[in-house]
């Protein structure tokens, strides 16, 4: 460790802040270039927020979703501590324990907070949720939901986006009776088109989730449930609010940095102050990307290259986000422009009976957008094509069906197929051996070598011998 290494203070030990620490340590393992202090307001190590629905479902223990954190001499982690002020002129971060940290560079990785919609009875004026109401943003929320959502109990999930659908699936896995309310005309409105959403809703209904799309909640009645705008009341011991998030930008705003939905950053992830950076859900880049983990991790890698000077040329130019629903038994991927106009060619397969739907839009030979429900193989292929901006194969249908078109290379054998690939024995050679008296597989092997490689052609040779001899092949020891 180098005592004169530059000091970088990272505010936030969530998915992006801890990732940045890991990326910095990987590039500068001895702390020769950068001394890092990471501030986390939650107690305990960084964990993988994306997997919280899995904790809810009982797939993971909280211990299981811990994230890697570097164990280097130049990294200091202070948990259970919140930053209360950022003074960009003095380059100082003030903490809630009364201490302060001076920095060479400061990184805001403060993430986002759950947004509570303005529904009566959901949250108090100061934003505190009312009894029975909880978000699903951190481990404490997760513990609250687990305490409230006993097996057999009714629970309402408010918000039919990705997190709401994952939470609903996880709750059904706990044996909870779930109602899901979405105010948009269809679920996952931002990620998928209506036909896909209809099929997805049917899949959820089949799992026992009552899906209420295009319904606005009017009131949470603690001890009873959620009242909808049509007067119906959905029974609920708990209300899990998954209705979006807001970037945690208070610190930046108070420091006078330019903030819109998030803290504005350029391609070097620098804010309005040249020594302050922002990454992850609290940042707002022209290329978008907030709300998903992959862009935040890509930002962490870019910023680590810049802060350590190992990649001064690194830039973040925007995300090509792929949304992947993590719900047991349901494979859903959506990416890009899922309602592309007619400047794109679009192939669609709808199979409501089979619960499957695929839509691929191609513009200029590249993937413009896709929705893939129940097509796991092609979904991963298309996501990789999209991610790399790579050309789409000419056979779009084959791509969607996850199957290579016929025409794979086979050597030209002039109508005489190769029976034993390992030894390149054509059918004609086996026939010649038979004509010379070879009647068993062993005779054929001795004469032609067929069957002596991987053994995959044993059945074929037996079949040929049976056909020519008009008998079953002689047994071999």
């Amino acid at each position, binding site marked *: 460790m180098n005592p004169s290494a530059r000091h970088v203070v990272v505010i936030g030990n969530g998915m992006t802040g801890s990732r940045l620490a890991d990326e910095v340590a990987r590039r500068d393992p001895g702390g020769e270039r950068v001394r890092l202090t990471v501030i986390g307001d939650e107690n305990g190590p960084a964990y993988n927020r994306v997997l919280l629905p899995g904790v809810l479902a009982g*797939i993971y223990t909280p211990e299981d979703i811990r994230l890697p954190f570097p164990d280097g001499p130049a990294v200091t982690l202070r948990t259970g501590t919140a930053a209360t002020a950022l003074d960009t002129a003095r380059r100082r971060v003030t903490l809630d324990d009364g201490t302060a940290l001076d920095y060479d560079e400061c990184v805001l990785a403060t993430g986002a907070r759950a947004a509570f919609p303005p529904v009566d009875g959901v949250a108090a004026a100061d934003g505190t949720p009312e009894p029975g109401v909880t978000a699903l943003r951190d481990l404490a929320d997760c513990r609250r939901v687990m305490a409230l959502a006993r097996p057999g109990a009714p629970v309402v999930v408010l918000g039919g986006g990705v997190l709401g659908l994952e939470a609903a699936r996880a709750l059904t896995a706990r044996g909870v009776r779930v109602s899901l309310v979405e105010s948009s005309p269809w679920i996952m409105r931002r990620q998928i088109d209506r036909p896909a959403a209809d099929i997805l809703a049917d899949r959820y209904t089949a799992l026992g989730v009552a899906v209420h799309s295009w319904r606005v909640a009017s009131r949470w009645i603690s001890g009873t449930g959620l009242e909808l705008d049509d007067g119906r009341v959905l029974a609920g011991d708990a209300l899990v609010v998954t209705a979006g998030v807001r970037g945690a930008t208070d610190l930046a705003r108070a420091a006078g940095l330019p903030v819109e939905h998030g803290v504005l950053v350029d391609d070097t992830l620098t804010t309005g102050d040249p020594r302050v950076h922002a990454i992850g859900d609290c940042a707002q880049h022209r290329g978008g990307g907030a709300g998903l983990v992959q862009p935040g991790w890509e930002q962490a890698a870019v910023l680590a290259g810049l802060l350590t000077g190992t990649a001064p040329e690194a830039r973040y130019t925007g995300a090509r986000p792929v949304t992947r629903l993590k719900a047991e038994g349901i494979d859903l991927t959506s990416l890009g422009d899922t309602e592309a106009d007619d400047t794109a060619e679009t192939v669609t397969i709808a199979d409501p009976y089979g619960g499957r739907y695929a839509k691929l839009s191609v513009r200029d030979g590249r993937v413009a957008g896709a929705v893939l429900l129940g097509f796991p193989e092609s979904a991963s292929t298309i996501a990789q094509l999209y991610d790399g901006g790579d050309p789409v194969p000419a056979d779009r249908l084959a791509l969607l069906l996850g199957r290579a078109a016929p025409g794979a290379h086979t050597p030209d054998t002039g109508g005489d197929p190769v029976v034993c690939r*390992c030894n390149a024995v054509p059918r004609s050679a086996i026939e010649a051996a038979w004509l010379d008296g070879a009647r068993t597989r062993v005779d054929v092997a001795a004469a032609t070598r067929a069957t002596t490689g991987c053994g995959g052609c044993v059945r074929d040779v037996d079949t040929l011998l049976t056909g020519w001899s008009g008998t079953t092949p002689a047994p071999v020891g």
Partner: protein
Amino acid sequence: MTTTHCPYCALQCAMHLEPGADGRLAARPAPFPTNRGGLCRKGWTSADLLTAPDRLTTPLLRADRSAPLAPTDWDTALDHVAGRLAALRAEHGPDSVAVFGGGGLTNEKSYQLGKFARVALRTAQIDYNGRFCMSSAAAAGNRAFGLDRGLPFPLTDVAGAATVLLAGANPAETMPPLMGHLSAPRLVVVDPRRSATAAYALANGGLHLAPRPGTDTALALGLLHAARAQGLCDDAYIAERTTGFAAAWPGAAAWWPEQAEHTTGVPAALIREAARALADPGGAYILTGRGTEQHAKGTDTVSAWINLALALGLPGRRGSGYGCLTGQGNGQGGREHGQKADQLPGYRRIDDPAARAHVAGVWGVDPDDLPGPGRSAYELLDALGAPGGPRALLLFGSNPVVSAPDTGRVADRLAALDLLVVADFVPSETARRADVVLPVTQWAEEDGTMTGIEGRVLRRRAAAPPPPGVRTDLEVLHGLAVRLGQPADRFSADPGAVLAELGAASAGGPADYSGVTPERLDSGEELYWPAPAGGAPTPRLFLDAFAHPDGRARFAPVAHRPPAETTDPAYPLIATTGRIMGHYQSGAQTRRIGELAAAEPAAHVEVHPDTAARNGLGDGDWALVESRRGTTRARVRHRADARLDTVFLPFHYAGDQAANNLTNPALDPVSRMPEFKVSAVRLRPDRPQGGTA
């Protein structure tokens, strides 16, 4: 009739050699547990090499670099080599002379080569081409189990498992008779290509996981994640037989299946299904091959596979386990007896004072006179003729201008040497660049031992006398040692005597061969090492304890990292390399066998038809494949089942068709394995020269 084993791969199929109708020796399969009476084309045709038209039968020497190689006699050749070596050592010190060996050499030759370097030359500069083969798996195996034996169980055990995962291995193409052991288990094949093995798996109810090249670590971590998340881990085994799970798990926690899918392209659902298959109570094996190992992060990737195996409770139990499929004929024995830069016989470490004292005692030298660890293979090749680097190289059983990464660079380094001496039986591409070529025997002309894929020591038997003028490698080393002032009895040319000495030198080491004798081998005893004198051999390692002092296996905390070179607009495709059925390694042998050469006469490149078309190429066209390091010519072979972003080239061809003209010499920080399997490339048509457009 003589019964011996095949000259090529580590499966070491047993074969009978006897004269055919034309009087020349011919091979046919013999029953043996590994090959079960099978043989591939290479084995069937192997005897043809004994009468190769350009077989070397006389030493060759060139007066200077501009002169051609000219025949000479043995005394002149050996006197010349010894004289030049002595002069270089006197002027520049012992490390000015380097030795490079091979994984095809017998145990006796490997041992003698290491001893020759340390005792007769006193150089630390010795390594071998096995560094390009098993080194990542060896390093990870040592890290996890405290011992590295490719398969720590007999191959026949595999047939009884419910599931076998093959990571980066394509035995249907490269070791066909091995497939006979895989007909009952459900196969999970991890390979970016729809290889013959992957196709076999799919046709028989198995799975094919096709990760983007260079992302295997993420896939293995994703499988561990999926195993844990589905409650499949063996917690009791983890608690009782391992250490380090808690520290290793966060590395996998970051790779939930959907995240692994994003990086690897393998569907999350397939990752979960594969994890379930591996947790089948009927037992499972995880086997790795070069596809997952030959990366600049190969050691960590193998550790990730071993972590998965440990989490599922597979190693050290009957009916399940982890293993590495060794490639070269004696890739196992060749890595145990001192050809490696950091190693002494018996798989001992050269920096261990006790090991040095023991081996020096057997050799009759002062332990302080033994050199320390030297450069690894690519670093050694890269230093040749450079300031501070070796000025002479003795090369046995290898053809690095075809098989090493970035062949252009390797050829330049060889050219910068003061003296290159190559012992071979055919004029390989490397031999043709030598100052002195020494003609040596080949497999059917010599006795010795090999250690096969299972760690079982096998007898190689001479079936025919060598052609007049040809000497064994042991005779060559003896002749040079004596000329370098060594006592005549210190470097025996008798394989039996060398085996006995090897046994003594390895006694008490991890790979203990002291109980291996020709008599026991001839009696058919199954001598899996460690086979100590007076003790039983060891078919299955780790059943009671792993080889670390606490008896436990160790999880290694590993993270995925991107390949050393990623694609970009200038080089938008990934090239990966491998072997095909009809050829072996650098092709120096198999390209000289008429039947094999006729079947696959020239390099090809497998390309998706769309990718080929975008680059102006049709099936059968000659293409130029270009990387930042060099260019390869190859004929396009359409593969509709190929990844669009990946092309494949076999590496058996030389000159402008050498796949290793492209490859990246970025090295693994632990094993020093080069990144053979991921190079960023582009494709273009190879227009005929002088034609009109």
